[in-house]
C-alpha cells in the first residue's frame, strides 16, 4: 500500500458520479478511508457543474448512466482545459474490452474497475492516483514559488523604499539595497541586527513575536496597514525620519512568524510639510491680523469662518457666525443691491467691484462698510462659496466729514478775514463822522447823547471786526508790535469783558500776583486774545461745578514769567487731552465752540517764544500754564 500524506491536509477532492444513490453511498463509504473529500454527482451534467466549483484530484465515473454515460462524460472532461488532465476511474459492470470505446484513453490517466468491485482494490487504485496528484501539485507549487521569488528579489532591489524582513524575535533577516544605502550599514551588518537598534519608535518586537491567533484575524489586518513615523539610526549617528509600515505574517509554525517592514524616507515630505505649515501660518496671520474684515461662506451665504477684524466689527464669534447667513447681517434695504451684485458681477465674472452697504452688528447697531466679494470655485470649477473683504467706513466717513469741515472753516475764515479788513475802511469813516458830529453838537442837545451811543456802537463793531480778525488768525500776529504789557492789567481787562458771564453764573475770580511784577514784551492784543480764550474755556468748564472758581496766578522765574489760569471745573479726560490743541477739536455742542480757541492761543504764545501747557484732572479742574519770556523792547 502506498504511503501518502493524509489527504485532508492537502485538501484533495474526489468526484464520484453514479445515477444510483445506493452506489454513491457505497462508494463514499469505501473512499472515506482515503481522507479525501468526496463530491457526488447523480448525472453527467451534475458532474460537469461540479467541476466548475471544485478542483478535483480524481473522478470515479459509473459507465452505465442514462442520458450521458461515463464515456461521454469523460469526453467532455477531456475537452475542457481545466479538467483535461483529471485522472478517471471507470466503474463498469462488464469485464470486457469495451473500455477501448473511450477515445481519450491515451490522453490521460485512466483506469477501469469492474463491478462488483472489491473495495480494497478500488481503494488501492484511488490511493495511487491521489499520491500522483499530490506530487504533481507540489511540483507546480515549487515552480511558482521560484518564479515569485525572482520577481520579489527584483522588486526589492529596485524599490526606493527600504524593505526588511524581521523575524518574530525582532531580528533583521533580509534587507534591500535602499536600506543599505540609507543606513550606511552593509548587508552583513544589518542581517541579524535587532530592529530596535536600527529604528527609534519602530513597531515593537513584542508585537512581532506574538503569534497571531485565528481569532484575531481582524487585528492582524489592522496591523497590516498600520504605518507610523520612526527614525532610522544610521551608522554615522544621524537620524532620518521614516514612515514605517509593517505587514505581519505567521508561518505554519510559530518560528516563522515575523514581519515585512517597508520604510520610506520622509525628509522631503517633512520639509514640504513644514514649508506648507509656514506658508499656512503666514496666510493665517495675514488673515487674522488684517484690519479689514474677511469672512467665508457657502453658496447659501452660511458663514464658515471669519477673521478677527470681521468678528470685532460685527460683534459675533465664529461659533455664532456659523449659525448665521450673510443675509442675516444685512439690513433689508440693501437686499436688492446685494442680490443685483451677486447676479450681475459675482456669478458672471467671479468677483464684485467695491460697493457700500450696511451690516447689522450683534447688538443691533448698524455700520457702513465698503465690501468686495469673490467667488470660490471647487476642483470642478463649480461655484462652492464666497469670501468677502469688509472695510468699516464709518471712521473714514467721519474723517472725511472732518476734513470737509476743516476746509470749509478755512475758506470761511479767509472770507471773513478779507471782509473784516474791508470793513475797517467804512468803520473808520463812520467812527470819524460820528466823532465829528458829536464834536459839533452841544452837550445839552439830546442828539449829543444819541451820537455818543452811536459812537459806542461803532466801537463795538470795531471790536467785533477785531475779534473776527484774531479768530481768523490772519495778519494780526505778524502786524502787531510788541510792547510792554502788565499781564494782570490785561487779565483784569479780559475779566471786565466777561463780567456779564462771570456775574450771571456766579463765578469767583481770584487774582494772585506778586506786588513786584515785571511787564513782559509781547503783543498785547494777541495776549489779550489768549487770556480771553482761556478764561472763556474756564467759564464753560465751571458751569456745572458746585464750586465755581477761576484763579489767575503769576510768578517770575528768572527771565521767564509763568501765568496760570486754573478752574474748578469738570476737567479733561486723558483721551481729550491728547487733542485739545488740535485745530477744530472741540467738546462743546455744535455752534458753541469753533475748536480754534486753544490751537490759536497756543500758536500765539509760541510765536512769541512762549509755551502753553495744560494740566487737568477729571472732576477736579484744569490749569493752563503760559510761560513767556520777559523779553526786551526789540525781541529777537
Amino acid at each position, binding site marked *: 500500500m502506498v504511503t501518502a500524506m493524509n489527504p485532508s491536509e492537502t485538501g484533495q477532492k474526489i468526484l464520484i458520479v453514479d445515477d444510483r444513490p445506493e452506489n454513491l453511498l457505497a462508494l463514499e463509504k469505501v473512499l472515506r478511508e482515503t481522507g479525501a473529500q468526496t463530491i457526488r454527482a447523480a448525472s453527467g451534467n451534475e458532474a460537469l457543474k461540479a467541476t466548475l466549483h471544485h478542483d478535483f484530484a480524481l473522478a470515479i465515473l459509473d459507465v452505465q448512466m442514462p442520458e450521458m454515460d461515463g464515456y461521454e462524460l469523460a469526453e467532455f472532461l477531456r475537452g475542457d482545459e481545466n479538467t483535461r488532465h483529471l485522472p478517471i476511474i471507470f466503474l463498469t459492470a462488464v469485464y470486457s474490452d469495451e473500455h477501448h470505446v473511450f477515445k481519450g484513453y491515451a490522453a490521460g490517466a485512466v483506469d477501469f474497475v469492474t463491478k462488483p468491485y472489491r473495495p480494497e482494490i478500488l481503494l488501492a487504485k484511488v490511493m495511487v492516483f491521489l499520491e500522483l496528484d499530490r506530487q504533481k501539485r507540489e511540483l507546480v507549487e515549487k515552480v511558482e514559488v521560484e518564479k515569485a521569488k525572482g520577481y520579489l528579489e527584483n522588486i526589492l532591489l529596485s524599490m526606493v523604499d527600504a524593505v526588511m524582513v524581521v523575524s518574530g524575535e525582532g531580528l533583521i533577516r533580509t534587507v534591500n539595497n535602499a536600506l543599505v544605502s540609507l543606513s550606511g550599514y552593509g548587508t552583513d551588518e544589518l542581517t541579524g541586527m535587532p530592529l530596535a537598534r536600527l529604528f527609534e519608535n519602530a513597531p515593537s518586537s513584542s508585537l512581532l513575536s506574538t503569534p497571531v491567533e485565528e481569532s484575531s484575524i481582524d487585528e492582524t489586518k489592522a496591523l497590516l496597514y498600520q504605518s507610523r513615523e520612526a527614525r532610522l539610526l544610521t551608522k554615522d549617528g544621524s537620524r532620518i525620519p521614516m514612515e514605517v509600515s509593517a505587514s505581519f505574517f505567521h508561518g505554519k509554525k510559530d518560528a516563522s512568524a515575523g514581519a515585512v517592514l517597508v520604510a520610506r524616507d520622509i525628509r522631503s515630505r517633512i520639509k514640504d510639510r513644514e514649508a506648507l505649515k509656514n506658508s499656512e501660518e503666514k496666510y493665517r496671520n495675514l488673515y487674522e491680523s488684517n484690519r479689514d474684515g474677511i469672512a467665508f461662506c457657502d453658496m447659501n451665504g452660511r458663514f464658515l469662518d471669519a477673521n478677527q477684524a470681521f468678528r470685532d466689527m460685527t460683534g459675533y464669534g465664529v461659533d455664532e457666525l456659523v449659525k448665521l447667513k450673510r443675509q442675516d447681517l444685512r439690513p433689508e434695504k440693501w437686499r436688492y443691491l446685494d442680490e443685483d451684485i451677486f447676479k450681475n458681477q459675482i456669478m458672471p465674472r467671479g468677483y464684485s467691484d467695491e460697493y457700500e452697504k450696511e451690516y447689522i452688528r450683534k447688538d443691533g447697531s448698524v455700520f457702513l462698510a465698503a465690501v468686495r466679494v469673490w467667488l470660490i470655485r471647487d476642483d470642478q470649477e463649480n461655484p462652492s462659496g464666497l469670501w468677502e473683504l469688509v472695510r468699516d467706513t464709518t471712521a473714514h466717513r467721519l474723517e472725511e466729514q472732518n476734513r470737509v469741515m476743516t476746509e470749509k472753516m478755512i475758506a470761511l475764515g479767509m472770507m471773513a478775514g478779507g471782509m473784516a*479788513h474791508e470793513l475797517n475802511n467804512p468803520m473808520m469813516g463812520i467812527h470819524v463822522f460820528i466823532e465829528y458830529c458829536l464834536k459839533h453838537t452841544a452837550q445839552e442837545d439830546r442828539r449829543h447823547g444819541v451820537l455818543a451811543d452811536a459812537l459806542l456802537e461803532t466801537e463795538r463793531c470795531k471790536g467785533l471786526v477785531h475779534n473776527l480778525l484774531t479768530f481768523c488768525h490772519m495778519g494780526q500776529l505778524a502786524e502787531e508790535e510788541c510792547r510792554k504789557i502788565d499781564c494782570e492789567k490785561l487779565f483784569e481787562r479780559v475779566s471786565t469783558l466777561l463780567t456779564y458771564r462771570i456775574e450771571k453764573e456766579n463765578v469767583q475770580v481770584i487774582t494772585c500776583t506778586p506786588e513786584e511784577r515785571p511787564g513782559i514784551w509781547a503783543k498785547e492784543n494777541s495776549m489779550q486774545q489768549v487770556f480771553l480764550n482761556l478764561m472763556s474755556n474756564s467759564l464753560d468748564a465751571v458751569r456745572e461745578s458746585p464750586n465755581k472758581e477761576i484763579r489767575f496766578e503769576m510768578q517770575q522765574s528768572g527771565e521767564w514769567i509763568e501765568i496760570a489760569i486754573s478752574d474748578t471745573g469738570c476737567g479733561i479726560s486723558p483721551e481729550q487731552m491728547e487733542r485739545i490743541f488740535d485745530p477744530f477739536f472741540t467738546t462743546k455742542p455744535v455752534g458753541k465752540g469753533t475748536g480754534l480757541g486753544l490751537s490759536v492761543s497756543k500758536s500765539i504764545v509760541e510765536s512769541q517764544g512762549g509755551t502753553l501747557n495744560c494740566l487737568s484732572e477729571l472732576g477736579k479742574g484744569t490749569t493752563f500754564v503760559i510761560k513767556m519770556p520777559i523779553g526786551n523792547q526789540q525781541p529777537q
Partner: protein
Amino acid sequence: MIKRILVIDDDEAIRKVFLLALEETEFQVDTAPSGEKGIEMCKAQHYDLIYLDLKMPGMNGVETLRKLRGVDPDVPVYIITAFWGEFSEELNQAKEAGMAFEIMKKPLTMEQLVTLTIGILEGPADY
C-alpha cells in the same frame, strides 16, 4: 505859512474823514482819489505831509510811494492802511531802497488823526 497835507485814497469816505477831522486845524488838506492824481498834484504843489492808502485800483500805494520819492524825497509819507500783509514784500523792498515812510493802521479815530497830524507837523506834542 500854512502847511499842506495831501491825502491819497480811492475811498471817498476816507478822504472825507481826513477833511472833517482836520477841519479845525490850521492845515490845508487836499485829497487825491488815485496815485496818478496824487503824483500830478505833488509835482504842481509842495506838500508837508502825505497820507497814502495802499490798496488802490490802478497805481497802488507802494508804486505811488516810489514815484513820489522821485518828485519829493523828503516829504513825510504816512501809509494808512487796514491791511498790509499782501504788500509787505514790496514795502520791505522800498524801505531797503531808502524810501522813508511810516505805517499806521486803520481804523483811526478823529482824535488820533488830529494828534498824529499835529505831532508830525509841529513836533512832539504835549499829549
